[in-house]
Protein backbone atom coordinates (compact mmCIF):
# COMPACT_ATOMS: atom_id res chain seq x y z
CA UNK A 1 0.00 0.00 0.00
CA UNK A 2 1.32 3.44 -0.92
CA UNK A 3 2.14 5.79 1.94
CA UNK A 4 2.19 8.81 -0.40
CA UNK A 5 -0.73 11.22 -0.16
CA UNK A 6 -3.69 10.29 -2.42
CA UNK A 7 -3.54 11.44 -6.02
CA UNK A 8 -7.12 12.39 -6.99
CA UNK A 9 -7.69 10.73 -10.36
CA UNK A 10 -10.54 10.98 -12.84
CA UNK A 11 -11.71 7.81 -14.59
CA UNK A 12 -13.90 8.36 -17.65
CA UNK A 13 -15.42 5.53 -19.71
CA UNK A 14 -18.09 7.12 -21.90
CA UNK A 15 -21.45 5.43 -21.98
CA UNK A 16 -23.08 4.01 -25.09
CA UNK A 17 -19.97 3.65 -27.28
CA UNK A 18 -19.46 -0.09 -26.87
CA UNK A 19 -16.25 -0.08 -24.82
CA UNK A 20 -14.83 -3.58 -24.34
CA UNK A 21 -14.27 -2.65 -20.70
CA UNK A 22 -17.10 -0.55 -19.26
CA UNK A 23 -19.56 -0.87 -22.13
CA UNK A 24 -21.82 -3.33 -20.33
CA UNK A 25 -23.24 -3.82 -16.83
CA UNK A 26 -20.73 -2.04 -14.61
CA UNK A 27 -17.98 -4.21 -16.01
CA UNK A 28 -15.37 -1.50 -15.43
CA UNK A 29 -15.87 -1.85 -11.69
CA UNK A 30 -12.83 -4.09 -11.14
CA UNK A 31 -10.70 -1.52 -12.98
CA UNK A 32 -12.21 1.27 -10.86
CA UNK A 33 -11.46 -0.62 -7.65
CA UNK A 34 -7.84 -1.15 -8.73
CA UNK A 35 -7.45 2.50 -9.72
CA UNK A 36 -8.98 3.60 -6.41
CA UNK A 37 -6.38 1.54 -4.58
CA UNK A 38 -3.56 2.94 -6.74
CA UNK A 39 -4.66 6.58 -6.48
CA UNK A 40 -6.24 6.66 -3.02
CA UNK A 41 -8.99 8.88 -4.50
CA UNK A 42 -10.92 8.07 -7.67
CA UNK A 43 -13.62 10.26 -9.19
CA UNK A 44 -15.79 8.42 -11.67
CA UNK A 45 -19.32 8.19 -13.04
CA UNK A 46 -22.31 5.82 -12.91
CA UNK A 47 -21.51 4.06 -16.19
CA UNK A 48 -18.36 2.74 -14.56
CA UNK A 49 -19.95 1.78 -11.25
CA UNK A 50 -23.48 0.61 -12.06
CA UNK A 51 -23.94 -3.14 -12.36
CA UNK A 52 -27.72 -3.17 -11.91
CA UNK A 53 -28.12 -5.65 -9.02
CA UNK A 54 -24.33 -5.58 -8.45
CA UNK A 55 -22.37 -2.71 -6.90
CA UNK A 56 -19.32 -1.93 -4.83
CA UNK A 57 -19.01 0.77 -2.23
CA UNK A 58 -15.55 2.21 -1.51
CA UNK A 59 -14.96 5.40 0.44
CA UNK A 60 -12.07 6.22 -1.93
CA UNK A 61 -14.43 6.34 -4.94
CA UNK A 62 -16.52 9.46 -5.62
CA UNK A 63 -19.65 8.68 -7.67
CA UNK A 64 -20.38 11.72 -9.84
CA UNK A 65 -22.95 11.87 -12.64
CA UNK A 66 -21.49 12.58 -16.10
CA UNK A 67 -22.50 16.19 -16.65
CA UNK A 68 -21.45 17.09 -13.11
CA UNK A 69 -18.15 15.37 -13.81
CA UNK A 70 -17.75 17.59 -16.89
CA UNK A 71 -18.46 20.68 -14.79
CA UNK A 72 -16.03 19.50 -12.11
CA UNK A 73 -13.34 19.07 -14.77
CA UNK A 74 -14.12 22.55 -16.10
CA UNK A 75 -13.57 24.02 -12.63
CA UNK A 76 -17.21 25.00 -12.13
CA UNK A 77 -18.03 22.49 -9.36
CA UNK A 78 -16.31 21.16 -6.26
CA UNK A 79 -17.01 17.80 -4.61
CA UNK A 80 -17.80 17.65 -0.91
CA UNK A 81 -17.82 14.13 0.58
CA UNK A 82 -20.75 13.33 2.88
CA UNK A 83 -21.53 10.51 5.30
CA UNK A 84 -24.87 9.73 3.70
CA UNK A 85 -27.27 11.23 1.20
CA UNK A 86 -31.02 11.12 1.51
CA UNK A 87 -31.90 9.56 -1.83
CA UNK A 88 -35.26 10.61 -3.22
CA UNK A 89 -36.84 8.15 -5.64
CA UNK A 90 -38.36 9.57 -8.83
CA UNK A 91 -40.54 7.08 -10.72
CA UNK A 92 -41.90 7.51 -14.23
CA UNK A 93 -45.70 7.37 -14.37
CA UNK A 94 -45.25 5.15 -17.41
CA UNK A 95 -44.05 2.24 -15.23
CA UNK A 96 -46.75 -0.42 -14.86
CA UNK A 97 -48.06 -1.01 -11.28
CA UNK A 98 -46.36 -4.39 -10.81
CA UNK A 99 -42.99 -3.13 -12.04
CA UNK A 100 -43.40 -0.03 -9.86
CA UNK A 101 -43.92 -2.29 -6.82
CA UNK A 102 -40.73 -4.15 -7.70
CA UNK A 103 -38.81 -0.88 -7.59
CA UNK A 104 -40.35 0.16 -4.29
CA UNK A 105 -39.41 -3.22 -2.83
CA UNK A 106 -35.81 -2.78 -4.00
CA UNK A 107 -35.75 0.60 -2.25
CA UNK A 108 -37.16 -0.99 0.89
CA UNK A 109 -34.59 -3.78 0.66
CA UNK A 110 -31.76 -1.23 0.45
CA UNK A 111 -33.17 0.55 3.51
CA UNK A 112 -33.59 -2.64 5.54
CA UNK A 113 -30.49 -4.55 4.48
CA UNK A 114 -27.94 -1.84 3.67
CA UNK A 115 -29.12 0.96 5.99
CA UNK A 116 -29.60 3.48 3.18
CA UNK A 117 -31.77 6.57 3.67
CA UNK A 118 -34.18 6.33 0.72
CA UNK A 119 -37.21 8.56 0.25
CA UNK A 120 -39.46 10.31 -0.34
CA UNK A 121 -40.94 8.77 -3.50
CA UNK A 122 -42.51 10.91 -6.23
CA UNK A 123 -44.26 9.66 -9.37
CA UNK A 124 -44.19 11.98 -12.39
CA UNK A 125 -47.52 13.56 -13.33
CA UNK A 126 -47.28 12.06 -16.83
CA UNK A 127 -45.30 9.39 -18.65
CA UNK A 128 -41.78 10.54 -19.54
CA UNK A 129 -41.92 9.02 -23.04
CA UNK A 130 -38.35 7.82 -23.39
CA UNK A 131 -37.26 6.81 -26.87
CA UNK A 132 -33.95 5.37 -28.05
CA UNK A 133 -31.80 6.39 -31.01
CA UNK A 134 -28.32 6.08 -32.45
CA UNK A 135 -26.17 8.98 -33.59
CA UNK A 136 -24.32 9.26 -36.91
CA UNK A 137 -21.34 7.38 -35.47
CA UNK A 138 -23.50 4.56 -34.10
CA UNK A 139 -23.25 5.72 -30.49
CA UNK A 140 -26.33 5.54 -28.29
CA UNK A 141 -28.16 8.84 -27.70
CA UNK A 142 -31.92 8.82 -27.00
CA UNK A 143 -34.75 11.20 -26.27
CA UNK A 144 -37.21 12.22 -23.60
CA UNK A 145 -40.68 13.41 -24.59
CA UNK A 146 -41.75 15.00 -21.30
CA UNK A 147 -38.77 16.96 -20.05
CA UNK A 148 -40.90 19.30 -17.91
CA UNK A 149 -42.61 16.42 -16.09
CA UNK A 150 -39.20 15.03 -15.11
CA UNK A 151 -38.03 18.37 -13.78
CA UNK A 152 -41.29 19.04 -11.87
CA UNK A 153 -40.93 15.73 -10.04
CA UNK A 154 -37.28 16.45 -9.31
CA UNK A 155 -38.07 19.85 -7.86
CA UNK A 156 -40.78 18.27 -5.70
CA UNK A 157 -38.28 15.75 -4.31
CA UNK A 158 -35.71 18.43 -3.56
CA UNK A 159 -38.33 20.54 -1.79
CA UNK A 160 -39.27 17.47 0.29
CA UNK A 161 -35.71 17.08 1.54
CA UNK A 162 -34.02 14.72 -0.90
CA UNK A 163 -30.29 15.47 -1.19
CA UNK A 164 -29.76 13.10 -4.12
CA UNK A 165 -32.16 11.67 -6.69
CA UNK A 166 -32.48 8.19 -8.17
CA UNK A 167 -34.68 8.34 -11.24
CA UNK A 168 -36.35 5.35 -12.86
CA UNK A 169 -37.83 5.84 -16.32
CA UNK A 170 -39.80 3.27 -18.30
CA UNK A 171 -37.71 2.31 -21.31
CA UNK A 172 -39.17 0.64 -24.40
CA UNK A 173 -38.95 -3.16 -24.37
CA UNK A 174 -37.52 -4.66 -27.52
CA UNK A 175 -36.59 -8.23 -26.59
CA UNK A 176 -36.39 -9.39 -30.21
CA UNK A 177 -34.01 -6.68 -31.42
CA UNK A 178 -30.67 -7.61 -32.98
CA UNK A 179 -28.97 -4.81 -31.03
CA UNK A 180 -30.11 -6.26 -27.70
CA UNK A 181 -29.04 -9.75 -28.72
CA UNK A 182 -25.60 -8.46 -29.69
CA UNK A 183 -25.27 -6.56 -26.41
CA UNK A 184 -26.23 -9.60 -24.35
CA UNK A 185 -23.64 -11.64 -26.22
CA UNK A 186 -20.93 -9.07 -25.68
CA UNK A 187 -20.53 -7.46 -29.08
CA UNK A 188 -22.82 -4.44 -29.20
CA UNK A 189 -23.61 -1.01 -27.84
CA UNK A 190 -25.78 -0.47 -24.77
CA UNK A 191 -28.73 1.07 -26.60
CA UNK A 192 -30.22 2.46 -23.38
CA UNK A 193 -27.15 4.37 -22.28
CA UNK A 194 -27.59 7.56 -24.26
CA UNK A 195 -31.13 8.23 -23.05
CA UNK A 196 -30.10 7.38 -19.50
CA UNK A 197 -27.33 9.96 -19.65
CA UNK A 198 -29.70 12.63 -20.95
CA UNK A 199 -32.14 12.05 -18.08
CA UNK A 200 -29.55 12.23 -15.32
CA UNK A 201 -27.78 15.20 -16.94
CA UNK A 202 -31.04 17.16 -17.07
CA UNK A 203 -31.91 16.55 -13.44
CA UNK A 204 -28.45 17.17 -12.10
CA UNK A 205 -28.09 20.42 -14.07
CA UNK A 206 -31.50 21.67 -12.93
CA UNK A 207 -31.29 20.74 -9.26
CA UNK A 208 -27.56 20.82 -8.47
CA UNK A 209 -27.92 17.45 -6.72
CA UNK A 210 -26.24 14.10 -7.33
CA UNK A 211 -28.52 12.15 -9.68
CA UNK A 212 -28.39 8.80 -11.43
CA UNK A 213 -30.76 6.74 -13.53
CA UNK A 214 -31.98 3.16 -13.71
CA UNK A 215 -34.16 2.00 -16.60
CA UNK A 216 -37.38 0.08 -15.89
CA UNK A 217 -37.75 -2.87 -18.26
CA UNK A 218 -39.67 -6.11 -18.39
CA UNK A 219 -37.58 -9.20 -17.52
CA UNK A 220 -35.89 -10.87 -20.50
CA UNK A 221 -36.13 -14.54 -21.40
CA UNK A 222 -33.10 -16.64 -20.45
CA UNK A 223 -30.14 -16.35 -22.83
CA UNK A 224 -27.79 -19.31 -22.29
CA UNK A 225 -25.05 -17.47 -24.23
CA UNK A 226 -25.14 -14.38 -22.03
CA UNK A 227 -21.80 -12.55 -21.90
CA UNK A 228 -20.51 -12.29 -18.29
CA UNK A 229 -20.12 -8.51 -18.74
CA UNK A 230 -23.88 -8.14 -19.24
CA UNK A 231 -24.91 -10.61 -16.53
CA UNK A 232 -25.33 -8.04 -13.75
CA UNK A 233 -28.47 -6.79 -15.50
CA UNK A 234 -30.17 -10.20 -15.50
CA UNK A 235 -30.08 -11.00 -11.79
CA UNK A 236 -33.20 -9.23 -10.65
CA UNK A 237 -36.31 -7.33 -11.61
CA UNK A 238 -34.71 -3.88 -11.55
CA UNK A 239 -31.46 -2.02 -12.24
CA UNK A 240 -31.94 0.12 -9.14
CA UNK A 241 -29.72 -1.28 -6.32
CA UNK A 242 -26.44 0.04 -7.75
CA UNK A 243 -27.92 3.51 -8.22
CA UNK A 244 -29.18 3.72 -4.64
CA UNK A 245 -25.85 2.49 -3.27
CA UNK A 246 -23.83 4.83 -5.49
CA UNK A 247 -25.91 7.88 -4.64
CA UNK A 248 -26.02 7.10 -0.92
CA UNK A 249 -22.42 8.31 -0.60
CA UNK A 250 -22.10 10.51 -3.68
CA UNK A 251 -20.38 13.81 -2.86
CA UNK A 252 -22.35 17.04 -2.66
CA UNK A 253 -21.91 19.28 -5.72
CA UNK A 254 -20.68 22.68 -4.56
CA UNK A 255 -20.45 25.66 -6.94
CA UNK A 256 -16.79 26.65 -7.24
CA UNK A 257 -17.69 30.29 -6.63
CA UNK A 258 -18.45 29.48 -2.97
CA UNK A 259 -14.73 28.68 -2.47
CA UNK A 260 -15.63 25.89 -0.07
CA UNK A 261 -12.88 23.61 1.25
CA UNK A 262 -13.88 20.77 -1.03
CA UNK A 263 -12.19 18.70 -3.72
CA UNK A 264 -11.58 20.69 -6.89
CA UNK A 265 -10.03 20.02 -10.27
CA UNK A 266 -6.82 21.76 -9.18
CA UNK A 267 -6.12 18.76 -6.94
CA UNK A 268 -6.54 16.18 -9.70
CA UNK A 269 -3.30 14.53 -10.77
CA UNK A 270 -4.41 12.31 -13.66
CA UNK A 271 -7.32 11.53 -15.97
CA UNK A 272 -7.83 8.09 -17.49
CA UNK A 273 -9.91 7.52 -20.63
CA UNK A 274 -10.19 5.01 -23.50
CA UNK A 275 -7.53 5.73 -26.14
CA UNK A 276 -10.21 6.01 -28.85
CA UNK A 277 -12.62 8.24 -26.91
CA UNK A 278 -10.59 11.30 -25.93
CA UNK A 279 -13.02 13.83 -27.41
CA UNK A 280 -15.32 14.33 -24.42
CA UNK A 281 -15.68 17.48 -22.35
CA UNK A 282 -14.01 16.19 -19.17
CA UNK A 283 -10.92 14.80 -20.88
CA UNK A 284 -10.42 17.91 -23.02
CA UNK A 285 -10.85 20.18 -19.99
CA UNK A 286 -8.24 18.20 -18.07
CA UNK A 287 -5.84 18.15 -21.02
CA UNK A 288 -6.15 21.92 -21.40
CA UNK A 289 -5.24 22.29 -17.72
CA UNK A 290 -2.09 20.24 -18.19
CA UNK A 291 -3.37 17.27 -16.17
CA UNK A 292 -1.67 14.07 -17.38
CA UNK A 293 -3.99 12.04 -19.63
CA UNK A 294 -3.57 8.26 -19.47
CA UNK A 295 -5.02 6.79 -22.68
CA UNK A 296 -5.94 3.13 -22.20
CA UNK A 297 -6.39 0.56 -24.96
CA UNK A 298 -10.11 -0.16 -24.60
CA UNK A 299 -11.65 -0.86 -28.02
CA UNK A 300 -14.89 1.03 -28.76
CA UNK A 301 -16.88 2.41 -31.70
CA UNK A 302 -14.89 5.65 -31.85
CA UNK A 303 -11.39 6.44 -33.08
CA UNK A 304 -10.93 9.86 -31.55
CA UNK A 305 -7.33 9.32 -30.57
CA UNK A 306 -4.57 11.46 -29.09
CA UNK A 307 -2.89 11.57 -32.48
CA UNK A 308 -6.03 12.75 -34.27
CA UNK A 309 -6.57 15.53 -31.71
CA UNK A 310 -2.91 16.45 -31.24
CA UNK A 311 -3.00 15.62 -27.52
CA UNK A 312 0.01 14.53 -25.48
CA UNK A 313 -0.92 11.40 -23.51
CA UNK A 314 0.65 8.58 -21.54
CA UNK A 315 -0.36 5.35 -23.31
CA UNK A 316 -1.41 2.26 -21.35
CA UNK A 317 -2.17 -1.15 -22.81
CA UNK A 318 -4.63 -2.02 -20.04
CA UNK A 319 -6.24 -0.69 -16.88
CA UNK A 320 -3.67 -2.71 -14.92
CA UNK A 321 -0.92 -0.71 -16.58
CA UNK A 322 -2.87 2.50 -16.01
CA UNK A 323 -3.02 1.67 -12.30
CA UNK A 324 0.76 1.26 -12.28
CA UNK A 325 1.14 4.63 -13.97
CA UNK A 326 -1.19 6.29 -11.46
CA UNK A 327 0.82 4.78 -8.62
CA UNK A 328 4.02 6.09 -10.24
CA UNK A 329 2.56 9.60 -10.45
CA UNK A 330 1.37 9.32 -6.85
CA UNK A 331 4.86 8.31 -5.73
CA UNK A 332 6.55 11.03 -7.78
CA UNK A 333 8.09 8.67 -10.35
CA UNK A 334 8.17 10.06 -13.89
CA UNK A 335 6.29 7.57 -16.11
CA UNK A 336 8.86 8.01 -18.89
CA UNK A 337 11.54 6.56 -16.59
CA UNK A 338 9.63 3.27 -16.58
CA UNK A 339 9.85 2.80 -20.36
CA UNK A 340 12.66 1.66 -22.63
CA UNK A 341 14.36 2.95 -24.61
CA UNK A 342 14.99 6.02 -22.47
CA UNK A 343 16.28 8.74 -24.84
CA UNK A 344 19.19 10.86 -23.65
CA UNK A 345 18.53 14.52 -22.85
CA UNK A 346 19.50 16.97 -25.61
CA UNK A 347 20.81 20.50 -25.26
CA UNK A 348 18.37 23.20 -26.28
CA UNK A 349 19.62 24.77 -29.56
Amino acid at each position, binding site marked *: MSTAPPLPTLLVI*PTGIGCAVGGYAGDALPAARLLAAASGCLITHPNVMNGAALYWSDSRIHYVE*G*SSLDRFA*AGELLLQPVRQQRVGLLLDAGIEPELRHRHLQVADGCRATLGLDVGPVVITDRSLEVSL*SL*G*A*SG*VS*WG*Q*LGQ*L*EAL*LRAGRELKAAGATAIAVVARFPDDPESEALAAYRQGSGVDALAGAE*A*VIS*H*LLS*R*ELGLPCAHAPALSPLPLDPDLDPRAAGEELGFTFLPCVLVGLSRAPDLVPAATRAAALGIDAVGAVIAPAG*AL*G*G*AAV*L*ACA*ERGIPVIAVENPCL*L*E*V*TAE*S*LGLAVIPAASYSEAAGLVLALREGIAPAALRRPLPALQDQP
Partner: protein
Amino acid sequence: MISGQLRPVLLQLERQSGSLRSQIEAAVAAHGAPLRWAITAVQQRADQPALLQIEAVVVSVGDRQQDEA
Protein backbone atom coordinates in the same frame (compact mmCIF):
# COMPACT_ATOMS: atom_id res chain seq x y z
CA MET B 1 -34.28 26.91 -15.09
CA ILE B 2 -34.21 24.39 -17.90
CA SER B 3 -37.20 24.33 -20.23
CA GLY B 4 -37.90 23.50 -23.86
CA GLN B 5 -37.27 20.47 -26.04
CA LEU B 6 -34.37 18.07 -26.32
CA ARG B 7 -32.81 18.08 -29.75
CA PRO B 8 -29.96 16.02 -31.26
CA VAL B 9 -27.36 18.07 -33.13
CA LEU B 10 -24.76 16.86 -35.60
CA LEU B 11 -21.98 19.30 -36.42
CA GLN B 12 -18.93 19.32 -38.67
CA LEU B 13 -16.34 21.70 -37.31
CA GLU B 14 -12.95 22.81 -38.62
CA ARG B 15 -10.36 22.62 -35.89
CA GLN B 16 -8.95 26.06 -35.07
CA SER B 17 -6.02 26.98 -32.84
CA GLY B 18 -6.73 27.69 -29.19
CA SER B 19 -9.01 25.86 -26.78
CA LEU B 20 -10.74 23.01 -28.55
CA ARG B 21 -13.33 22.67 -25.80
CA SER B 22 -14.31 26.35 -25.99
CA GLN B 23 -14.61 26.11 -29.77
CA ILE B 24 -16.93 23.12 -29.55
CA GLU B 25 -19.05 24.53 -26.75
CA ALA B 26 -19.59 27.76 -28.69
CA ALA B 27 -20.58 25.83 -31.82
CA VAL B 28 -23.00 23.58 -29.93
CA ALA B 29 -24.44 26.50 -27.95
CA ALA B 30 -25.53 28.12 -31.20
CA HIS B 31 -28.18 25.36 -31.39
CA GLY B 32 -29.42 25.47 -27.79
CA ALA B 33 -28.23 24.87 -24.24
CA PRO B 34 -25.66 22.04 -24.47
CA LEU B 35 -26.60 19.00 -22.40
CA ARG B 36 -24.14 16.45 -23.76
CA TRP B 37 -21.54 16.50 -26.53
CA ALA B 38 -18.57 14.57 -27.79
CA ILE B 39 -16.22 14.49 -30.75
CA THR B 40 -17.21 11.25 -32.48
CA ALA B 41 -14.91 11.35 -35.51
CA VAL B 42 -11.90 13.27 -36.80
CA GLN B 43 -11.13 13.58 -40.49
CA GLN B 44 -7.53 14.55 -41.27
CA ARG B 45 -7.18 16.62 -44.46
CA ALA B 46 -4.09 17.55 -46.47
CA ASP B 47 -3.18 21.26 -46.10
CA GLN B 48 -6.35 22.00 -44.16
CA PRO B 49 -7.32 21.88 -40.49
CA ALA B 50 -8.81 18.58 -39.29
CA LEU B 51 -12.57 18.27 -39.60
CA LEU B 52 -14.28 17.26 -36.35
CA GLN B 53 -17.64 15.52 -36.17
CA ILE B 54 -19.54 16.55 -33.04
CA GLU B 55 -22.65 14.78 -31.79
CA ALA B 56 -24.61 16.62 -29.12
CA VAL B 57 -27.94 16.90 -27.37
CA VAL B 58 -29.18 20.40 -26.61
CA VAL B 59 -32.19 21.87 -24.89
CA SER B 60 -33.95 24.17 -27.30
CA VAL B 61 -37.31 25.83 -27.76
CA GLY B 62 -37.14 25.05 -31.50
CA ASP B 63 -39.30 22.39 -33.08
CA ARG B 64 -36.89 20.87 -35.62
CA GLN B 65 -35.92 17.29 -34.97
CA GLN B 66 -32.34 17.35 -36.24
CA ASP B 67 -29.91 20.11 -37.10
CA GLU B 68 -27.04 19.57 -39.45
CA ALA B 69 -24.40 22.20 -39.94
